[in-house]
């Protein structure tokens, strides 16, 4: 049994927002794979829950908007992100990243929205959403607002959600994925059921002859207290050949990262992983884009 005080099962997004307005201290629960564990650990013991579990009609699923932007419902489970045909067509790397969270049972309940609302740097989809420049559409008592993912993370475990606000859409603008290919490397001790020691997501846009990186995006999980983009690395390798870019990107990225030593891994080890894996991710992203590597 969980040490919780009440569960309000919201019937709709509006209902959930209203419930959160009445009880701003209440905790939103979606898939449960994060919140329930925190209750059990005692971090949220005794809490009151507002459950948005099952509000799939409003909050789950993937679609392409008229603008061509990709629109992901935050209640979409990791599993459904991975296997969604639109994700596979337009942003397959996001599906691959979602497929590395936990294990199959967790991916069946854990949601992409939960993954980015808990503010955790190791979240497997976060670095890729960062690289794609996703826009977080939140709804609250005052209506909608859009937060660029660059501004989303406010610190460890903190995101830009105001009282009684819910993340309702995750939108990837068409320009940010069209013509790009990407690769995500989850570096962890185990090949399943693990949290990332480092997550690296690299997107590339290749020249017509597939030899030059016209543009690159590089984002990390666990290279800093929150997921981050490495603009220095991106700027440094833009316009280089794939091979040159792969060679240089790791060292350049070191200027933007701020990994910590924890009992899980040392700063030095994470730095070495950034150096090594950035180039590997870039090469693989380029290969997927048609480069001969």
């Amino acid at each position: 049994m969980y040490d919780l005080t009440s569960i309000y099962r919201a019937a709709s997004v509006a209902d959930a927002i209203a419930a959160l307005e009445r009880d701003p201290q209440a905790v939103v629960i979606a898939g449960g794979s994060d919140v329930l564990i925190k209750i059990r650990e005692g971090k949220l013991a005794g809490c009151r829950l507002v459950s948005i579990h099952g509000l799939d009609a409003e909050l789950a699923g993937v679609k392409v908007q008229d603008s061509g932007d990709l629109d992901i419902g935050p209640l979409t489970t990791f599993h459904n992100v991975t296997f969604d045909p639109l994700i596979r067509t337009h942003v397959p790397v996001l599906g691959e990243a979602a497929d590395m969270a936990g294990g199959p049972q967790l991916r069946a309940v854990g949601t992409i929205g939960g993954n980015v609302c808990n503010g955790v740097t190791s979240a497997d989809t976060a670095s890729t959403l960062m690289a794609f420049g996703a826009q977080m559409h939140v709804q609250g008592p005052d209506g909608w607002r859009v937060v660029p993912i660059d501004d989303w993370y406010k610190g460890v475990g903190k995101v830009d959600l105001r009282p009684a606000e819910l993340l309702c859409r995750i939108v990837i603008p068409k320009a940010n994925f069209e013509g790009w290919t990407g690769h995500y490397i989850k570096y962890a001790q185990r090949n399943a059921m693990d949290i990332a020691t480092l997550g690296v997501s690299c997107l590339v846009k290749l020249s017509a002859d597939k030899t030059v990186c016209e543009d690159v995006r590089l984002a990390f999980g666990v290279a800093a207290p929150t997921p981050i983009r490495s603009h220095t690395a991106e700027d440094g390798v833009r316009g280089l050949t794939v091979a040159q870019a792969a060679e240089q990107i790791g060292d350049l990225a070191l200027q933007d990262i701020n990994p910590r030593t924890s009992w899980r891994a040392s700063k030095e080890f994470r730095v070495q992983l950034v150096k090594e894996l950035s180039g590997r991710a870039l090469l693989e992203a380029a290969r997927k884009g048609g480069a001969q590597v």
Partner: protein
Amino acid sequence: MMEILHCTVNGKPVEVGYDLRESLLDTLRDRLGLTSVKRGCEVGECGACTVLVDGVAIDSCIYLTAWCEGKHILTVEGLQGENGELNPIQKAFIEEAAVQCGFCTPGIIMSAVEIVGSGKQYTREELRKLISGHLCRCTGYQNILNAVERAVDECHKIVGK
């Protein structure tokens, strides 16, 4: 904090009183006596409590009973045929010596039900990934993989005919 849950468990309609604070694991084990559903870690890491909810394998320890209204829940107790015949997956686990202490077995069998139910065939590596949400300390997963592979093959043959 008692409520009443209406759902279908192993093909039968069920109405059961439960405490809102219960996980599905609690309710299945302690209220419905479905003791095949095992408690191993309570944080979704070991997979011993895996059941199917509407055909999807989930860790019942991190799933609230409050979410189960109207759902179809399947546990190992619901796998045998009406004359008691074993499901092909259960048979494969016996034949392949995939069972040792047996504590992780029901959970893995439930993941195998989902795997077999997909109607697809899988490589060995794909099967490893599909059962990677289960921890087993006895078998090294070797014979479990053999059993799941065998069950998939056998069911595929039957469906293929």
